[in-house]
């Protein structure tokens, strides 16, 4: 009997490995191998198209570390990550909290609010480029209608530039505005799922205790939602850290290279046939990503 069980057991184990085989083959060839191969490419002066590679040691890494453009790209990525985290937490949670109070309307609202996630970043970027358009853009239309610039000048402030995406002082803001428009609905859905996982009796008892909404949220809801909040933050950070398409379409990293983010910085060098240099940038990205993951896991564990 025992012998028989061991025999079927090992057969079943082989079966599991067979089930895993296609996944492992594809994953290693088209995912892990390139990641590992990329690590060494950063050590070469290499165009990416010719066969010629010059070993230059850590030159690329050093050049990147002291490049002000890279610092600028890092700074922008950092700003986008922080702003997205805050806005999408506050707005996403607030909308979820509101939606919970209206049984029917709330559910319809969440379905509508989630629509932006089915739009490609390219579509979103193009549409928003037109909203920011200096001649017929919706945003300028709203500003004109409300006489915003007039009011700003009246209190001694400068006007809002006609083209938000092209003006150095507002280009990054235009990226932030669009990115958050795109993301808020998703986080509203995530937080509302979290709110729904809290038992109804808790909501009832809060009602009886006569707490105000802010007191309820701060004292009862947030402590219970710690896991959801932490994970939602992980998602925002991961998404913001690799932001590429929106910046590429909205500002192209411009004006000049003012609104470059890390991935756009990397892509520029790949596209201009400096694949070695781009690989070194990728290595930095990988390291920063890993550090984020470690921080996140620490964070998640202490939250529990």
């Amino acid at each position, binding site marked *: 009997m025992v012998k028989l069980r061991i025999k079927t057991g090992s057969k079943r184990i082989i079966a599991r490995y067979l089930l895993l085989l296609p996944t492992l083959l594809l994953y290693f*060839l088209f*995912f892990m191998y*390139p990641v590992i191969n990329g690590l060494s490419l950063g050590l070469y002066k290499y165009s990416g198209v010719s066969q010629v590679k010059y070993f230059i040691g850590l030159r690329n890494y050093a050049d990147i570390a002291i490049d002000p453009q890279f610092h600028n790209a890092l700074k922008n990525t950092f700003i986008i990550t922080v702003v997205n985290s805050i806005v999408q937490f506050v707005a996403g949670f607030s909308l979820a909290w509101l939606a919970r109070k209206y049984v029917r*309307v709330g559910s319809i609202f969440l379905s509508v609010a989630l629509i932006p996630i089915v*739009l490609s*970043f390219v579509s979103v970027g193009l*549409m928003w480029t037109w909203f920011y358009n200096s001649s017929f853009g919706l945003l300028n239309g709203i500003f004109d209608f409300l006489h915003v610039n007039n009011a700003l000048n009246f209190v001694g402030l400068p006007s809002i530039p006609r083209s938000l995406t092209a003006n150095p002082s507002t280009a990054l803001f235009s990226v932030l505005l669009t990115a958050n428009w795109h993301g808020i609905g998703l986080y509203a859905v995530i937080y509302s799922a979290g709110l729904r996982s809290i038992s109804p009796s808790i909501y009832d008892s809060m009602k009886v205790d006569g707490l105000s909404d802010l007191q309820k949220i701060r004292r009862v809801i947030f402590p219970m939602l710690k896991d959801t909040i932490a994970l939602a933050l992980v*998602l925002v950070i*991961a998404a913001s850290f690799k932001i590429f398409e929106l910046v590429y379409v909205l500002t192209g990293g411009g004006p000049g290279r003012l609104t470059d983010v890390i991935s756009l910085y990397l892509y520029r060098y790949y596209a201009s046939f400096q694949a070695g240099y781009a690989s070194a940038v990728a290595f930095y990205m990988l390291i920063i990503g890993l550090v984020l993951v470690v921080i996140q896991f620490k964070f998640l564990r202490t939250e529990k």
Partner: protein
Amino acid sequence: MSLEYSPWNWFRDRFTRVVGLLVLILWSITAVYPLLWATFTSLKTREELFANTWGLPSNPQWSNYVYAWGTGNMGAAFVNSIIVTSLSIVLLFVISPMAAYALARAEYRGKGTILYILLAGMYIAPQVSIVPLAILLQSLGLMDSAIGLVMVYVASGLPYSIFISRLGFLSIPSSLEDAAKVDGLSTFQTYRKVALPLALPSVFIAMILEAIFIWNDFLYPLVFITSPDKNTLPLGLFRFQGSYLIQYGPLAAGIMISTVPLLILYILFSERIKKGIAAGIGVKT
């Protein structure tokens, strides 16, 4: 226990309810307005767009769609996107639940390591590997081809779809699997006849979310596709924008062409998609 009930409280409750509702409505409008605007714009001439930017088109220009589909190359891009997305999803649908099942309940040597290595892929930004991937595809002759894109999408989609599908397999009561074992079903039979059908809702959610991602992805085609007739939709849209004096009507039509299929998918499955997003988050802890 009882709450004081005064006209003031009544008024305050009413007021906050109305304001809350207004906020929800306002955000709903903000969320869909760009899409509505693109719909209107796709039916306007250039002149009308400048004269009547916000309103309904007075004389719908369906020719914008014809132009986008033909001259704008969006038709080819549409077909290419269908090919790439469906091939990737079929492959993912076949292999990722298999792996997810193998990595769900059974304990055996190497399982933990394999699981970690696979899930680590979720944390590696795609930008990290575009350069070596381009070199790999070049050496395999898969650059500028649908198959190359499909391979990359499947490989990079595996971690997420395995993660979500695995949640489905983990939610099956283990007694069912034991029963199948007692009945003498092999592992493959148990997988195909017992486990997969029960985990299908989760697998399905993973496939919907992957399909949305693949359909909309821009980075991989940007790097791996060079011929204009091999564009997928987002890349086609981007190149369409760059290649002419910006033709707003036809471009907006291109946006609609690339969005409508996903919009239909979303309308059909929005409850499942919402649930999927919630499940992915809720259980990941």
